[in-house]
């Protein structure tokens, strides 16, 4: 399976999308593949750490998600978690008196979902980290498909 030459390999491209770095590992460039894996996962996890699961949102941030989806299935898993754990039913604060009372009383049942939503720069930076991880992984996918460098790794 290892093809360390520069011939076009669609299998390596698909593997690189499935898991960052796997395309280079399949070409026999193990060290390079693990470094790429470390880099992409570092950006991805740093984004999730800063912005929480809310920074990967297929429904509300569709354009950003286009870039984020280039990270592979992990982006879809993060989005699934976001839709299940973070995106809850919107609360009508003007009419729902019970929700207002619970909020003012500090009820965790209503405050906990609100704490999961990222706002302002926190959400922006988390979204940017994950989107950049995806865009860099696009370059990795292209490089795994047909590498242009020469020399041993």
């Amino acid at each position, binding site marked *: 399976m290892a093809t360390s030459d520069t011939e076009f390999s669609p299998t390596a491209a698909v593997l690189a999308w499935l898991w960052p770095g796997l395309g280079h590992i399949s070409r026999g460039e193990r060290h390079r593949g693990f470094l*790429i894996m470390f880099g992409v996962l570092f950006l991805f996890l740093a984004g999730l750490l800063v912005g929480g699961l809310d920074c990967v949102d297929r429904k509300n941030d569709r354009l950003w998600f286009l870039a984020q989806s280039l990270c592979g299935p992990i982006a879809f898993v993060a989005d699934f978690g976001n839709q299940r754990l973070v995106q809850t039913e919107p609360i009508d604060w003007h009419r729902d008196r019970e929700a207002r009372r619970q909020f003012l009383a500090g009820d965790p049942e209503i405050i906990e979902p609100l704490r*999961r939503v990222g706002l302002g720069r926190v959400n922006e930076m988390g979204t940017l980290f994950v989107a950049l991880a995806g865009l860099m992984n696009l370059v990795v996918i292209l490089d795994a498909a047909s590498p242009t460098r020469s020399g041993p790794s």
Partner: protein
Amino acid sequence: MIGMLAFIPFLHPIAAVHDWWYLLLVPLSFGIAVIYKAMRLPTLDAFWREVFVMTTQIVVAMIALAIGLAIWVRLVIPLLPVSPQAGLTPAHPSPPAASAPLVQRA
């Protein structure tokens, strides 16, 4: 009460980042440098040194860009003359042109 609730990493956003978001440029540059150098270097012997150099280059370049833009916006742009054609009212209106018709007093 809100502060007493436990922080769960990767689920809750880090609210404290809001005040020092610009420091995140360092890990952002580091991640980009790791991926780029892992792809482009022919040999990975001096990998981490190259990553350090590229991270420093990005951070320094962004700081220089920020300083340059701050100088441009705060110092240079206020010195530019205001053009009447731009639809802005000048602070001191210019005198009427010589060809303008004079109004005779009765």
